[in-house]
């Protein structure tokens, strides 16, 4: 009986437990790990993916999957770079989230209008979006070496990268929306039991469309930050981000079946995976073991989480 609270704690906070264990291990292995510059570096590098994972949380809680966010990221990257070069750098940065929002909205409308599973629909739209990114960029890099463009990716406020502030504000807004607003309750209801939600008067399709629009907005925002940081737009940007974002959401503990989850969990999931990459680079370790280690860490997190669930049953 005395083990029950411990197991429940493990189940609830598996991702945080793994982060703490990794931080301890990396601190013991390298003097360079637990330093303010390196921690800010990890947060800065992974802020775009964390922003996307935060928004993906809402999509998954509402019972959907968005496999097109990597391609939306690519469209945002080439659009912002192209507009920065040919119109105005600030306008380029501003338009990336706007384009992302529009593409996300398109995803939601396609899914609900055609009444197809989001998994299939977003595979199709991801190809369309990726194709658009290639056409816009002609398959080439678009370098934008302008201070007016790179400030959001490289600038700091109070000694902290702007990208981290953006992530913090974005994650807090989404947390507030999910936990303190009627829209958030509708997202949870639609994901938990769509039929019951509809019977209780919730317009489930509108809720789903909104979650995909938010995911698109997040992908566009993330692309603006990442493109600004490397001062370069490219159609291959964001490749694989959709799976990394989904992995982080699930690893964080949000239910793959919808109805349950939290934004902070997904952000934590991103940083759990980020610690492994950072550790390998800092320790100058053989990258052949990176995937093996990542898999073992994910397995450990799942193991800790499921230990609590088994006890519950």
């Amino acid at each position, binding site marked *: 009986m005395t083990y029950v609270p411990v197991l429940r704690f493990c189940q609830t906070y598996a991702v945080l437990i793994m982060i703490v264990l990794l931080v301890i291990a990396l601190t013991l292995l390298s003097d*360079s790990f637990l330093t303010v510059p390196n921690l800010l*570096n990890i947060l800065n590098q992974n802020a775009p993916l964390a922003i996307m994972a935060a928004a993906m949380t809402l999509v998954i809680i509402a019972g959907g999957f968005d496999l097109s966010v990597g391609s939306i990221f690519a469209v945002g990257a080439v659009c912002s770079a192209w507009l920065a070069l040919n119109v105005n750098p600030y306008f380029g940065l501003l338009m990336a989230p706007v384009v992302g929002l529009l593409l996300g909205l398109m995803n939601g409308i396609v899914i609900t209008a055609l009444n197809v599973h989001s998994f299939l629909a977003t595979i199709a739209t991801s190809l369309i979006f990726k194709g658009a990114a290639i056409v816009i960029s002609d398959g*080439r890099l678009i370098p934008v070496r302008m201070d007016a463009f790179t400030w959001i990716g490289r600038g700091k406020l109070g000694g902290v990268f702007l990208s981290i502030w953006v992530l913090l504000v974005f994650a807090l807004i989404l947390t507030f929306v999910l936990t303190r607003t009627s829209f958030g309750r509708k997202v949870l209801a639609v994901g938990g039991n769509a039929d019951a939600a509809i019977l209780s008067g919730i317009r489930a399709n509108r809720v789903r469309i909104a979650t995909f629009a938010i995911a698109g907005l997040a992908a566009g925002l993330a692309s603006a930050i990442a493109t600004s*940081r490397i001062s*370069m737009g490219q159609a*291959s940007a964001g490749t694989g981000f959709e799976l990394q974002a989904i992995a982080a959401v699930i690893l964080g503990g949000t239910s793959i079946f919808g109805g349950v989850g939290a934004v902070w969990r997904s952000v934590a999931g991103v940083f759990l995976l980020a610690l492994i990459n950072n550790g390998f*680079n800092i*320790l*100058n370790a053989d*990258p052949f073991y990176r995937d093996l280690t990542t898999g073992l860490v994910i397995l450990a997190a799942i193991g800790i989480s499921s230990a609590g669930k088994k006890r519950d049953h």
Partner: protein
Amino acid sequence: MSRTIVVAMLMSIALSGNAFAKGKIAYFAAASQNGFNQATYEGVQEMAAARGYETEVFDGQFDAAVQFAQVEDVLASGNFAGYIIAPNDNVGIAGAVEQVIAAGQPIATVLFPIGPEMNSLEPQVPGITATVASPPVPGATLQAEAVVEFCVDKNPCNVIILIGAKIFPFDNLRLETYQTVLAQHDNIKVLAVGEGYYSPETGLNAMTDMLQANSDVHAVLSNADQQMAGAEIALEAAGYNVSDLYIMGGGAADIAIEALREGRWDATLAYFPKTMGALAMEQIANAIEGKPVRNAINMDFEGPVQALITKEVLNANPDFEAEWQQ
């Protein structure tokens, strides 16, 4: 009656493309949405047009199995007189290449040889028409020796190596070469080896991480300009004046040539994809027409300028332009 014949002839011309072309050449790109492959194809197209051939490009999508199937499909179609391939898997594709050779058709490889020996340009698949490539080890040796020359008066001379990816055999060869050459000099210390995956973003992240654990960097040695472009941003963010460091890229893409002309970088090992494509096409046309063929062409000696491009080389060749955009 004669009007019917003219219409039939015009329709035949329209359906078959250029009636005056000597034949159609298939170019199997490693991936068509890629600056390097696009430049190679431009070279193929220009030479093909000059020699009176048509061309068609096939997108290998950086997938060895896709490319293998494409070669078989195109061969089965019987519509092509010659083949040029930028292999995704230089060993695995040999089976498809043998089928083309068995059908009596000419085939050339660009960028990499077909066969297990990456440094040999001599035919490893009997009957292959031409190998137009840059062997990895001599190029990597040139790069590493340039770093050694920069380090000659520094002790220690701290070097960071940024390699494409260790999963690629050609990058492993390059990395081994870098390490072997640099290890022969006691004053040179390799601080770290990172993977850039030919991406500015990955190069930036890898270099940022490595700079957390390493300081006082004097030189960065990279096999690819794309990842070097990202690493440069990380160095600037860490407070380095990049112009003071020795920066070696690879590829001679437009961003590298611009960086060299501006004095930010010091050298890049050149690839000349457009020239490479043109030379491969020339050999295929020669083979079809029964003219002499060069079986092995080393691109380190065939470019418009020398393979290791520095600012001095560019000053001596002010009209030189990068052959590809990334």
